[in-house]
């Protein structure tokens, strides 16, 4: 019964996403939707480590940057086809994630958060200063779209790109759901509850934590790569700590430790600023306030609140 209701909701959402370009009259909102779908991918990754494993990582945007720069640079320097560099980008990100995850996962809680934040700063500094490779603050322009010149799809058309990103977002959301339901996912949830016990029952917790961290980084790398090819331009600015906080916000607002949460949260963080036409300082205050209030009053996010409401509605007639 509950399962059916959930499936129905997912199916409705899917139909909605597929029809969206037809429903949108102003193309600008299609543009925002594409960005939001990129964030869905990044937030699903963030959710694996933050929501399921219980480790707040503040380097998601940094990993998006690594994905974005690696797809752009591989395309520029080795002339590889776009689809291949998009596939390789998460792998490059994974290498960095292993290198950074190994030391940082030795510490827990706030320390882990701060160490990953330091990594985000390091990534940012290197992207800014390694001119020969990254062209620094000026950024990389002219990143090609997938498909090349004589593709049967018009990749310049935003509708096409929308469906491309949508398919990947669906795929990655599905993969996240599979991971969560698997033995691995159960182990991650167990680590969140009682990490010492996980070790005592014979599971190498560090391997699973590293798996979650690296997988979340690969999600970020993929999101960054797709973002880079969509925008055709990247520079370090968009891969700073502030954007990593957006990823955390997306997970919290949507509902951490749920599959639907990051989807809702990602659209929230992309579309919210559109409707907050305040001065910069007010927006910062409001953002902070949303984060604080959401954490205090709806720690399980929109999904959690919706679930409670649903339970109430269902509970009354019976």
């Amino acid at each position, binding site marked *: 019964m509950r399962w059916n209701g959930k499936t129905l909701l997912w199916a409705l959402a899917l139909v909605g996403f597929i029809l969206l370009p037809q429903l949108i009259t102003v193309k600008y909102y299609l543009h*925002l939707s594409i960005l939001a779908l990129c964030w869905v991918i990044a937030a699903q990754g963030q959710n694996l480590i933050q929501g399921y494993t219980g480790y707040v990582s503040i380097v998601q945007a940094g990993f998006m940057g690594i994905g974005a720069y690696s797809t752009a640079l591989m395309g520029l320097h080795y002339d590889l086809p776009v689809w291949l560099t998009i596939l390789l980008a998460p792998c490059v990100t994974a290498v960095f994630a292993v290198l950074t995850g190994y030391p940082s996962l030795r510490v827990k809680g706030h320390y882990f958060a701060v160490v990953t934040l330091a990594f985000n700063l390091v990534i940012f*500094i290197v992207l*800014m200063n390694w001119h020969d490779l990254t062209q620094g603050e000026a950024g990389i322009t*002219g*990143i090609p779209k997938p498909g090349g010149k004589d593709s049967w799809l018009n990749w310049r058309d935003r509708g096409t790109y929308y469906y491309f990103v949508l398919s990947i977002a669906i795929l990655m959301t599905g993969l996240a759901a599979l991971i969560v339901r698997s033995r691995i996912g159960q182990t991650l949830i167990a680590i969140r509850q009682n990490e010492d016990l996980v070790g005592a029952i014979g599971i190498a917790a560090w391997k699973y934590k590293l798996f979650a961290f690296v997988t979340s980084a690969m999600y970020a790398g993929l999101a960054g790569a797709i973002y880079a090819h969509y925008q055709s331009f990247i520079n370090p*600015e*968009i891969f700073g700590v502030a954007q990593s906080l957006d990823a955390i916000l997306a997970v919290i607002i949507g509902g951490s430790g749920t599959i639907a949460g990051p989807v809702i949260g990602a659209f929230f963080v992309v579309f919210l600023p559109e409707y907050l036409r305040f001065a910069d300082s007010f927006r910062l205050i409001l953002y902070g306030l949303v984060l604080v209030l959401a954490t205090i009053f709806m720690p399980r996010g929109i999904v959690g609140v919706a679930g409670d409401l649903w339970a109430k509605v269902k509970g009354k007639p019976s």
Partner: protein
Amino acid sequence: MKLTTLTAALALAGTTALAAEKTLDIGVSDALTGGAAVYGLPQANAVKMAAEEINAAGGIKVGDDTYMLNVIAYDDKANPTEASNSVRKLIDRDGVKYILGFCCSGATGAVASFIENEDAVMLVGNAAERSITTREIPNLVRTRPPADYTGAAAGTFVAQKGHKKVAVLGALDIGFYASYVDAFEKELEKAGGEIVTRESFGLKDRDMTPQLTKIRELGPDAILVVGYVEPAAFIYRQAVELGIDVPRFGFTSGSEEQFLRVATSEQMEGVWDLRPTELTLLSASDNGIAYHANYSEKYGIAPSPSSPYAYDQTYALKDAIEAAGTVDDTEAVAAALRELPVPDEVVMQYLPVDGKMFDVNGQAYTSNGAFQWQGGNWVFVQDLPSDAAAYSAFLSTID
């Protein structure tokens, strides 16, 4: 929504001799809030002021029609993603074809990367990154010269002063500062000089003593400070505190007030600033003086030295539209911009190449000046030896 017929009622009433008066929306994407708003907000203000002036003077005349300008300004916070969002919104939602503003390089680069595919014309202001005009995007022009154009002039100037060993301390993670230093070095080396070290600092660094201590050990003839004024002011102060007494050159474009907040006038005495002439009252033209007065009256605050880049954009656009004879055909307007002589109303002192304001790359050039801190003020000492034509040729060789 794009074109609104304001005078329909009049026309219906049978009033003759009046051509249709229409509205032309133009967009501004710039940093209106955040740290870069010191550059972006005055630019947006300057465009609005120019638009009002143009409207008051009878608007833009295209054939029989007269267009009144209406400015839609969006905040891009100097952030690349926000900038592409705001330009997308201008084009997709508001139907704008002419977009002005653009103070900062990252945001500008993001927009420049897709503007070629759009039915629009982009006019860049204060953003100094060279690569914006190296790609010869046909529907993009820029009023501010690239930083390395100024850097080359500065290098020649410092070499002429006889300095051989120059130590650089700069915000070298910022592309256009680095390119300023590169061009500086090239000219310095031509004269047999060299850069002995390139030290870097970040936007939020205020303690430069480690870098300066290293420079002190190297014993250079002069130091060159390249970066935003806030950290640069600390360098000048801390250099004195560490007992470094060689000549100090810089590329910071800061006001007296900004420096005096950090350093005393004695600590600043003798410092050189080598930069585009921009709006300095000591060197301003009649246009510049009028601009300064009008802006100050309208907004209750003095205009930033770089804000006329945006003011001048608006007049260049007006002349180009009138020359092309169309507001709808952006290709024609973009082509007309490339052929434009320097408009009469501009504030900055442009050095035309082949008699045109913008060269084939869409790049305009202003004069560069050497300013020196003397008794509490920046004093214009001389023009820097700038060569717009040569630089324009050089720019065309880069891709």
